[in-house]
């Protein structure tokens, strides 16, 4: 038997239960990717029905098909270009009125669609009756009552999809007509467009309506053709008429006519017998958005997410680290040559391990975030904090990713996907690294601990964190008023009714993010870590190797106690490491940049640490340990602190300057990789690197010179 494939797109408003319907329809046959060119997730799946395989694409939730947001553009382009066989318009039965706008826009497009009247089961308890037959006639399409929650109407929906596909339709298509003046303008413009050869086969009525609606995309499309000269005049006429006759403009008139049609349909087909009762959402919001309690609850939620991610995550992270260390321990003796051993242990295992240890944090963070998102609180959080964020040109939703940045920039950057506007999102991504992450803490602990008495050290560290926040907010402000200036992004956002998220969807989202991280970022980050490893190890000096071997031999033969000998051997080996590091490419870069970093109080040794610190910020400490030739390179070791304190080239001013520099300069390669991945291009990332270097240098200079004068 021949299996026929039907491609189906699910379209509908946000929160209409579209995704739950998708899950019920496709079961476990799901796949997630991105829509081409954007980071909007594309969920695909299929269901087998009789001799048909029905392939579903769950389009992003949109209120309308005018290109206002990336979601709407994606949805519209998908319907126009990918031309699915059948479009299923999922509408929320209890809120039919506002869901029907999208339906009226589908009516205009030449697509075969049907309506799934979802959450049908809720109608009765809300005292609403819908005359389905009449509504079918008005909308000109099949209507199938469904409930994703109770899993009812699913078979009927599949059956109707097949019927629409096979053109077994008993309902005549209906056309929504606008007021006569608009219809005249539409007809006139459509007539002109019909003469244009290049537009042959295009839906001229639809194009005309879109032009009157001031639709940017269609404007750009039609502007290329000679017919535009005439069309433009007709459009101007229409605008003048609308102003003269209705004191309005065509765009508003068209939308009003759509809503008038919807209102008419509602009056004909929908009866509401009970008055609206306060819902759970009303009661929860009375508390959660309360003028007094709103802010503390918000802060508590942010705190809880942070705790979940980093406090609960850190033992798991330690466990993974231990596992990798154990693995390295097992592998080490199996590898013959020291060079090969170094590649595997310090390069591969350290590189992959360094990336994978963040996985528990990422999974936990996304469990938390998708819970907030799916439950409906995320929009409330944005509502509560928007005023503060708006002052700096950001969106209320930028707050949670930014706070997450205090733990680690990688999940934070990934969390910006909840932001819809591309400029808001880019601005947020670019300021996240200023939120001082966990890996920078060892640097502060070392330096503040070494140069300041304990009671002051904590304040110094706190000041560094505050500086990071200030730089982040001011940078956002700067970005949004210069390169990222766009027509101020409107904040017009639905606060969806609260819903208890399903375990499946929460875990699914977390799994998705985890996979994305491991697969995409993992490759790039791994490559970068290996490059930095190579730069810190090559070229190697044979001289140093030979000298070390000689000395080791001499010590082995000498008449020392076993303990003395071990200490001497360790000292020799660390001196060798330090010398090799200086000889390596990273070491040379450190020395080359010395003149540049001299004014901010750094010598070549710090220069090397800053270069290797690009792999990960905690590496700054371990490199300094190696380079100051210590027997112990434990992070934040008291010994290193002691050495630095006694080093004449290292002062309080140097320490402060270095803390500022580490806070602000180029983020670690892992963050840069994720940044590139989420932005989609290198250019902003490169400009950003130059900007942060300049900023870090300037602020360190001010700090260093200021500290020299004052301390």
């Amino acid at each position: 038997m021949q299996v026929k494939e039907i491609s189906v797109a699910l379209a509908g408003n946000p929160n209409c239960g579209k995704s739950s319907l998708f899950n019920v329809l496709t079961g476990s046959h799901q796949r997630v990717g991105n829509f081409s060119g954007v980071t909007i997730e594309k969920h695909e799946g299929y269901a087998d029905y009789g001799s048909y395989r029905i392939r579903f694409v769950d389009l992003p939730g949109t209120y309308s098909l005018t290109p206002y947001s990336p979601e709407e553009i994606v949805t519209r382009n998908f319907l126009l270009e990918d031309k699915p066989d059948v479009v299923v318009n999922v509408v929320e039965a209890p809120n039919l009125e506002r869901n029907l706008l999208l339906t009226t826009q589908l009516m205009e497009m030449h697509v075969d669609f049907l309506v799934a009247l979802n959450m049908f089961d809720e109608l009765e308890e809300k005292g609403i009756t819908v005359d389905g037959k009449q509504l079918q006639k008005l909308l000109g399409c099949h209507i199938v009552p469904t409930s994703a929650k109770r899993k009812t109407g699913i078979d009927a929906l599949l059956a109707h999809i097949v019927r629409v596909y096979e053109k077994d339709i008993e309902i005549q298509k209906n056309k929504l007509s606008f007021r006569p003046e608009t219809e005249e303008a539409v007809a006139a413009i459509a007539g002109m467009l019909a003469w244009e050869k290049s537009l042959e086969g295009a839906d001229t009525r639809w194009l005309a309506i879109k032009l009157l609606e001031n639709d940017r995309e269609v404007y750009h499309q039609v502007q290329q053709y000679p017919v535009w000269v005439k069309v433009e005049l007709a459009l101007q006429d229409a605008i003048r008429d609308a102003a003269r006759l209705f004191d309005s403009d065509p765009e508003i008139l068209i939308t009003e006519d759509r809503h008038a049609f919807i209102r008419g349909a509602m009056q004909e087909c929908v009866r509401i017998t009970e008055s609206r009762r306060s819902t759970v959402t009303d009661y929860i919001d009375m508390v959660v958005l309360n003028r007094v309690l709103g802010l503390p609850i918000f802060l508590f939620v942010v705190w809880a997410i942070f705790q979940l991610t980093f406090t609960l995550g850190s033992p798991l992270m330690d466990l993974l680290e231990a596992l990798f260390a154990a693995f390295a321990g097992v592998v080490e003796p199996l590898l013959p040559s020291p060079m090969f051993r170094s590649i595997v242990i310090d390069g591969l295992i350290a590189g992959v391990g360094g990336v994978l240890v963040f996985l528990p944090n990422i999974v936990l963070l996304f469990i938390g975030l998708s819970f907030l998102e799916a439950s409906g609180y995320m929009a409330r959080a944005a509502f509560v904090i928007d005023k503060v964020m708006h002052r700096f040109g950001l969106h209320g939703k930028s707050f949670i990713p930014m706070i997450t940045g205090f733990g680690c920039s990688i999940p934070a950057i990934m969390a910006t996907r909840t932001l819809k506007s591309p400029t808001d999102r880019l601005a947020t991504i670019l300021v996240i690294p200023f939120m001082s992450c966990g890996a920078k803490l060892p640097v502060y602990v070392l330096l503040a601990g070494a140069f300041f008495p304990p009671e002051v050290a904590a304040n110094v560290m706190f000041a560094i964190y505050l500086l990071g926040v200030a730089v982040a907010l001011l940078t956002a402000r700067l970005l949004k008023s210069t390169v990222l200036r766009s027509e101020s992004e409107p904040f017009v956002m639905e606060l969806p009714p609260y819903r208890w998220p399903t375990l499946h969807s929460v875990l699914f989202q977390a799994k998705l993010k985890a996979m994305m991280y491991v697969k995409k970022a993992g490759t790039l980050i791994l490559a970068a870590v290996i490059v930095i490893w190579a730069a810190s190890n090559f070229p190697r000096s044979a001289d140093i190797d030979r000298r070390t071997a000689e000395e080791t031999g001499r010590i082995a033969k000498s008449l020392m106690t076993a303990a003395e000998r071990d200490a001497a051997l360790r000292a020799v080996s660390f001196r060798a490491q330090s010398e090799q590091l200086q000889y390596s490419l990273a070491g040379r870069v450190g020395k080359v940049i010395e003149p540049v970093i001299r004014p901010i109080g750094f010598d070549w040794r710090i220069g090397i640490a800053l270069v290797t610190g690009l792999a990960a910020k905690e590496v700054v400490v371990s490199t300094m340990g190696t380079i100051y030739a210590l027997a112990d390179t434990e992070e934040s070791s008291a010994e290193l602190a002691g050495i630095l304190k006694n080093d004449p080239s290292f002062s309080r001013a140097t320490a402060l300057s270095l803390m500022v520099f580490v806070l602000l300069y180029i983020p670690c390669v892992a963050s840069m990789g994720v940044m590139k991945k989420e932005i989609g291009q290198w250019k902003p990332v490169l400009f950003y690197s130059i900007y942060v270097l300049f900023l870090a240098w300037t602020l360190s200079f001010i700090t260093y010179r200021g500290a020299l004068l004052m301390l």
Partner: protein
Amino acid sequence: MNCRKARQESGSMKMSELQVGDKAEVTAVKAGQAVRRRILDMGLITGTRFKVLRVAPLGDPMEIFFKGMYLSLRKNEAEGISVRKTGEAGDGIAMSGDKQGRCCCGGAR
């Protein structure tokens, strides 16, 4: 009841000038292109009745309720929407006053 008062106050005002609990009707949407598009798409068109539910703890944005939707918008955006006041908190005036006796008063009272 407050009928007389409501009529007195029926002059046009901006949505951003409404108080929490006020009920009003949209008379015109005059915001900039992108904002207007958004507002129209949400179904907030001339003639739509809504209720001001609350203002965020920090004083901005505000939240309104209409046609079963809880919508938040910045006062900046609300400035572009002209409204006419139709009632106040707890006055029992229906938000959607059509013939079928629908009453969609948003929020708990």
